[in-house]
Every structure is written in C-alpha cells, then in structure tokens.
C-alpha cells in the first residue's frame, strides 16, 4: 500500500511518503486538525518550515530529516511534538530574530540559496568560465594540427593515384596536364565506335576492315589498365566466329548434347551444356560485346552464335534456339513422322522449360509433359472422366450447402457458448417483455443461471452478454438497486466479488417478464 500526504502553506511544502498506514493516519489527522481547528500560530509555524527530503518511509525518518527554517534555527522536534505550546514557538521566533540581527556564527545559509550558488554549466555560462577558454584554445590547436595532417595525407593520396608527386613537383601546370591526359584516355575508350560500313575509305584497311582492330584497343588498354570504365573491344575478322567450320563443329556438339538430354536431370543438363558452349567461345571472345564484320566491312548478322562472357546465359540461350532449329530439321529427315512429332513435342517442351525463368520443379515438369502428350491426356480422361455441366452444378451446390450448414453450426456454437442446448441471449430475450435496462439485467442473470448453468457471474461477463445482445451495459447503480430489492446477491469466489440471482429474483422474473 502506498500513502502520501502533501502539506502546502503559503508556498512552503511538506511531503510524507509512507507504507505505514498508522503513521500516515496520525500525521494526516494532525494536519487536518491544523487546517480546521488549529490556531493561527501553528499555521505561522508551518510557513517557516521547509523539508527538503521527501523520501520518508517512517516516522523515524521524518524525525531525522534536516529541518531548516528560512531563518535557519527552527527546531524540528517542536514541529513533531503535538504538545508544543505556542509560547515556546513564539520564543523561538523572537530568538531567531535576535540571532539574525546579531549575525551569529551559527547562522546557516538557507538550502535554497546553497542550491542557487551551485555552478550550473549551460551553453551560455560555459564561455564565461575562464578555464574553459584555455581548454577551448588548446583543443583548437589540437584540431588544427589534426586537420593539417589529414589534408597532407589526402594530397599525397591524390598524387599517388596519378603516379606523379604533386608535392615534389609543386607545379600546377604539370598536374593539370596529367589529368587532361587521363581524361583523354578515358574518353577514347568510352566513345562509341562508328559502324564500319559507314566509315570512309581512308579509315579502312586494305582488306576492308576498319582501324579499330584489337591491337589498337589493346594498346589503349595498356595505357590505363586500372581504369574502371568498361572496355569495348572490336575483334578482327580473322578472330571472329564467322568461320563456317567452327560453326558446324559447334552445331554438331550441340546436337550431341541435345541427344544426350536426360529430362530427369534437367538442371544439370542446362548448366553443363552452357559451360561447354561457353568454353568454346571464351578464349576467342573474352569481352562484353563482339561486333562481327564480314569481308566488306559490314556487320555480319548471319551468324547468331555469338557468346559473351558476362551475358553467357542469355546468349547461350540464343545459341540453343538457333541450333535447335537445325537439329529439328535434321531429325525430320532422319526419323519417321510419328517419332518426329513426339520428339518435337518433347524437345519443344524441354526448350520451353529450359529457357523459361519459372521455378517449376522436376515433378511438375514431368506431369506437364505427360499431360501435353495426347495419349497421356486420354488416359487421364479415362481415369477421371470430366463431369457434364449439370453434374458440375449439382456437385457445386452440394458443396456450398455443406459449407453453409457448417458455418451455421459454428455460429450457433459461438453464440451459445459451445452448448447445443443453449440458445442465444438475443433470441432468448425476445421471448420476454421488458422495458428498462434493469429488466434486461435481471433476465440476463436468470439466463446465466438457468440456461448457461453458471452459478454466478461477474460484471464483466454479464456486460459482455448484454452488450452483444442489446448494445448496452449496466453499471453498479443498477446492481445496487437489484441488491436492495433482494433479487441479486453478491458471492465471494476466490477473493473476487461476483453476483447471482436470488430465489426471489427468479420468482419475480417468472411473474413479470414471461409473456
């Protein structure tokens, strides 16, 4: 338990916290008496008292606290002593005045003044303290040195990056020249190369190729090997995959890979195939983009088998799409028409699965293939015949009816608190005639006892039932009226106050409310 009294008198405040009931009671009685019956002298005494400590837990603590009057010499025992007579208090007050006039050495400064004298370092007063200026000055010097050191190290880093010492040369023209050279190299690498077919004849070699050979690019690359800009390399005609023999070899390899497809392990197949295809072109095409020029200097678009290193997956898909067309043509010439149809369907399904980004699992893929095959579809149709539209409607109606009946059962069980015999209080209430909230309360108490079979109820439980049924709640005034009438009585259950309807209440209920 927690008790607190706070006495205020003309600006002075006295607070007493306690967990002891008797202490607080006696103290409160004392000050209550002072308020309504004590003399004016006691009030005067109260004005001069200021108790600093408010964390008092007992009367002993209260007696030991430091009581100081504004004049500095008021005795706390006099305040605690209930028998303190007024003459003594008056004598003390007169003595204090004498002490104040004589400026005695025992004079103690008021607590409030001492607190004010404590230095308070806020933002404004900080500048006014002399020692702070010294500290600030010293810190300023330290910070300046640190900034100088940081600035020097940054300048050294800048010069190191340009492979020239800016500090040693100390020549701004030389530094700017280095930067300009670097920018030129960067621009030369990042600029877009013109189409070879559009180049004038002066910019072309004797064999028709342009000046942007791999050798020139490599020489530029060596100028700024540490550059982060993307490097665009234009391959020479001799290094391009336009050679028909290489393309034929590649197609043959792809054919072999396609034939050795194992659908049960499609993920490994794709990675393995892409890796093998990539190996054929990695050594020859080690750059992001490759432009293939034919002998006339025009871009050769007839060869689709170009694989880049970074976009390996996408371009390898293009390779597969191109090669699979040829594979299918060869298969059509070699195999029968029926087998061709099956293999085409299977291959097409496999390609769709390989090139699609969906996360279909292996089982799903297999089931899709099975369904796509006409014979498989027939088998499925035989096993699970498709119902007619009327049959489908009847089935859906039956399912809906089952769901509705189940929902109704669930709702009823929720309203009747899980009992099949019980009925909802709202419907129960309709059987009775009532006019006031007090009647609803009594009906509900009867309902709880006789329908819900609960001996007693709390205000919370009965209000929840009433609110769900009527949207209203009752307060203690209604309960008090019913208790006075003898229709409701209180019951103590596990240290909690509960209520139940009395036999008189039940008789009254039967005589009044039943229709």
């Amino acid at each position, binding site marked *: *338990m*927690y*008790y*607190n*009294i*706070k*006495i*205020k*008198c*003309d600006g002075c405040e006295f607070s007493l916290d306690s967990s002891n*009931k008797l202490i*607080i*009671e006696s103290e*409160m009685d004392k*000050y*209550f008496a*002072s*308020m*309504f*019956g004590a003399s004016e002298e006691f*009030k005067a005494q*109260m*004005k001069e008292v200021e108790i600093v400590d408010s964390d008092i837990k007992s009367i002993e603590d209260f007696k030991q606290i430091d009581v100081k009057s504004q004049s500095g010499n008021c005795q706390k025992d006099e305040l605690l002593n209930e028998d303190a007579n007024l003459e003594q208090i008056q004598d003390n007050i007169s003595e204090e005045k004498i002490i104040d006039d004589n400026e005695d050495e025992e004079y103690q400064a008021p607590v409030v003044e001492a607190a004010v004298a404590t230095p308070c370092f806020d933002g404004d007063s900080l500048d006014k303290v002399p020692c702070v200026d010294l500290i600030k000055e010293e810190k300023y010097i330290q910070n300046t040195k640190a900034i100088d050191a940081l600035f020097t190290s940054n300048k050294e880093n800048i010069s190191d990056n340009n492979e020239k010492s800016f500090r040693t040369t100390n020549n701004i023209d030389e530094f700017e020249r280095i930067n300009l050279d670097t920018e030129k190299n960067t621009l030369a690498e990042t600029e877009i190369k013109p189409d070879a077919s559009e180049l004038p004849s002066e910019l072309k070699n004797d064999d028709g190729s342009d000046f942007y050979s791999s050798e020139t690019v490599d020489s530029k690359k060596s100028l700024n090997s540490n550059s982060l800009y993307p490097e665009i390399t234009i391959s020479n005609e001799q290094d391009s995959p336009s050679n028909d023999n290489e393309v034929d070899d590649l197609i043959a390899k792809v054919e072999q890979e396609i034939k050795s497809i194992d659908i049960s392990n499609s993920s490994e197949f794709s990675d393995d195939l892409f890796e093998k295809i990539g190996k054929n072109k990695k050594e020859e095409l080690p750059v992001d983009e490759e432009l293939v020029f034919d002998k006339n200097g025009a871009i050769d678009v007839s060869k689709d088998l170009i694989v880049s290193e970074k976009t390996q997956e996408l371009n390898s898909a293009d390779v597969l799409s191109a090669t699979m067309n040829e594979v299918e043509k060869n298969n059509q010439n070699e195999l029968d028409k029926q087998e061709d149809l099956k293999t085409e369907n299977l291959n097409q399904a496999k390609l769709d699965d390989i090139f699609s980004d969906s996360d279909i699992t292996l089982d799903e893929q297999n089931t899709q293939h099975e369904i796509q095959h006409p014979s498989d579809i027939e088998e499925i149709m035989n096993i699970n015949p498709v119902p007619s539209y009327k049959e489908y409607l009847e089935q859906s109606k039956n399912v809906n009816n089952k769901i509705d009946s189940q929902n109704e059962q669930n709702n009823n069980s929720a309203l009747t608190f899980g009992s099949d015999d019980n009925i909802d209080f709202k419907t129960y209430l309709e059987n009775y005639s009532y006019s006031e909230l007090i009647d609803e309360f009594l009906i509900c108490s009867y309902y709880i006892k006789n329908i819900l079979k609960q001996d007693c109820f709390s205000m919370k439980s009965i209000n929840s039932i009433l609110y769900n049924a009527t949207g209203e709640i009752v307060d203690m005034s209604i309960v008090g009226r019913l208790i006075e009438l003898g229709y409701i009585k209180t019951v103590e259950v596990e240290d909690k106050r509960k209520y139940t309807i009395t036999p008189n209440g039940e008789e009254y209920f039967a005589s009044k409310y039943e229709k």
Partner: protein
Amino acid sequence: MPQYVFKMKKGELEIEFSSDDADFVEQQLEKWREEILKKHIQQD
C-alpha cells in the same frame, strides 16, 4: 493499481492526500467528515 488523490484547501493551508488503498481513503474521509460535522454542531 488505481491511485486516489484528494486535495483539501482552507485559506493558505492545503492538504493533498493520495493513496492506492481505497478502503483507507474511504475511512479517512468519512472520519474527517464526521469531525467537521461535529465541529459545526458544537459551534451551533
């Protein structure tokens, strides 16, 4: 835990009484009320 606070003021003197003990608050206020009534009766 509820806390009950009662503040009484007469002239310059003010008493603020706070507690979480509802019974004690009730008893104390009742006791004070009776004392005030008695004083009124005596004065009359």
